[in-house]
């Protein structure tokens, strides 16, 4: 019985955790490049997911095309977010930039309400993967999809950041923007790129989370917040650790779903996030 419970926790925890992990990567990209917390991260996922769902409604989307379309849609959304928020206020106080992303999240939500309505929508499974049984552990197809997508995204992103010239420029910008500019890196372009990449990641996460929970206009904040918490657990700097932060948060949440009631779970999770934020390692002391 206990083994069954544990298997259940692992299954749903990994599905949630993979999504949180990918969201956390998007947060970390933007945060490292521009020291800005993007409140509209969840809305990027929402609009990306809805766009792909509508696209799948009008044409046949094989898995590869769905992935590509999601990445492109997210990329464009993220770039749009940049040019309407941070791109306009590069010299403003961090607080104003932060509040602009809040306003942007309202605008994105408004677009979602106008174009897709207020009812939850169930997007189709665009990446059909089978269930997987590894000894005692059983992974449902949603979990397998989420994990595959997430791990692929981490690997591709890691290669991009580590091996390409552009990726190194992005890393240089996040380590020391002034020095990067002195070396001829276009830091504003790098900020824009980090937003666009975060958008692409969020859209890919939507492919995983959509068929699990459906897409609803007001889902963005909760997901965004948990992505942020996961990024905090992971410490913002290393891809692997940030992703692991997402998995840990997902497993913790799944464990609580099975042990305590629904609303109390939310309370416990948010108390936990607060404690984590306060007690997290101080390497990001005095950051914005």
């Amino acid at each position, binding site marked *: 019985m206990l083994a069954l419970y544990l298997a259940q926790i692992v299954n749903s925890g990994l599905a949630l955790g993979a999504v949180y992990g990918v969201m956390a990567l998007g947060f970390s990209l933007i945060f490292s490049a521009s020291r800005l*917390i993007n409140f509209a991260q969840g809305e990027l996922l929402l609009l990306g997911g809805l766009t792909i769902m509508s696209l799948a409604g009008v044409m046949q989307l094989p898995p590869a095309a769905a992935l590509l379309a999601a990445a492109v849609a997210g990329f464009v959304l993220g770039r749009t977010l940049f040019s309407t928020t941070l791109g306009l206020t590069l010299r403003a106080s961090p607080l104003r930039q*932060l509040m*602009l992303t809040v306003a942007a999240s309202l*605008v994105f939500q*408004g677009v979602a309400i106008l174009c897709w309505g207020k009812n939850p929508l169930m997007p189709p499974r665009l990446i059909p993967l089978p269930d997987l049984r590894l000894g005692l552990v059983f992974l449902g197809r949603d979990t397998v999809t989420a994990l595959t997508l997430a791990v692929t995204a981490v690997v591709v992103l890691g290669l991009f950041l580590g091996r390409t010239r552009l990726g190194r420029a992005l890393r240089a910008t996040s380590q020391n923007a002034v020095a990067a500019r002195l070396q001829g890196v276009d830091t504003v372009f790098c900020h824009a790129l980090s937003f666009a990449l975060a958008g692409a990641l969020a859209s890919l996460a939507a492919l995983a989370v959509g068929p699990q929970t459906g897409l609803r206009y007001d889902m963005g904040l909760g997901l965004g917040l948990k992505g942020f918490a996961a990024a905090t657990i992971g410490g913002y700097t290393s891809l692997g650790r940030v992703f692991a932060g997402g998995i840990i948060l997902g497993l913790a949440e799944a464990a609580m779903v099975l042990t305590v009631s629904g*609303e109390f779970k939310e309370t416990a999770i948010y108390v936990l996030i607060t404690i984590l934020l306060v007690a997290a390692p101080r390497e990001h002391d005095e950051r914005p």
Partner: protein
Amino acid sequence: MTVPRNLSLGLFFAALAAVGLVTPGFQLLAVNQHLFLAVNVLALNFCLGLGGQISLAQAAFAGLGAYGSVLLHDRFPEATLVIVPAVVLGTGLLAAMLSRPMERLGEGFLAMATLCVSLVFTNLVLTLETVTGGSAGHMANARLNLPLLGSLSGDRATFFCFAGLLALGSYIFLALRDSRLGRALAACQGDAQAASSLGVDRAAVRSLSFGLGGGLSAAAGVIHGHYTGFISPEQYHLELSLKALLFLVIGGPGNLLRPILAALVLETAMSWLSVLGDARTLVNGLLLGAALLVGYWRASR
């Protein structure tokens, strides 16, 4: 054009009083909601404008005030004089205690931590269904009973309660800003490390401003809870915190009147927009974004 501070304050409150006297009762219902928000904006100004600490927990403090007072009045209907100060002080103390460990956090992290405080409050209210009524809400039948004035009810009385609270808050805000403590807070905001090395106990002074803000929000919540006659988690949801923060940033943290005016004017405009139906969220977002950008462009010129 600069207007002397006392004159602009006097004009503002005179205009406010005129609005309260002239507006017909049924329209005051909407005005009172805006005033409730304006008091919360002022409360947030204590944390952010004076201490430089962002907070999204204002809704939780207002909610604590409302729920605390209404639930206690159900038990002891005649004890207004004890309950209201206790609730306000208690919430203020809680806010001060919460802010102490969070003092070291930077802006974004503090925003997230205090956002979690708001969410914890909402979810606790939902969880403790037997006491609070959960998502269905709770009827607030008891009124605030004051010894000489009798029971407080009606739109106009509430309007002047809110206006009085706003005036009291403004007075404390200005007195604090021009005091030694206010300068210590300004130092924390300007350069935290320099302030520490000059002997300012950062955690202590900031928790004081945070606590004052929490107490003021709680007082607004007390009035609001008894006024609406019905309290539910949605009234004191995160949206209230976000709105308060948005209007404060639009008006400029540290200014006294501008954020309050921004809240009253923009909120009135946004309530007219309810005719737009589903397009409302979009237009609200555009309006707030535009206000933020206009403020930035004006400041950078």
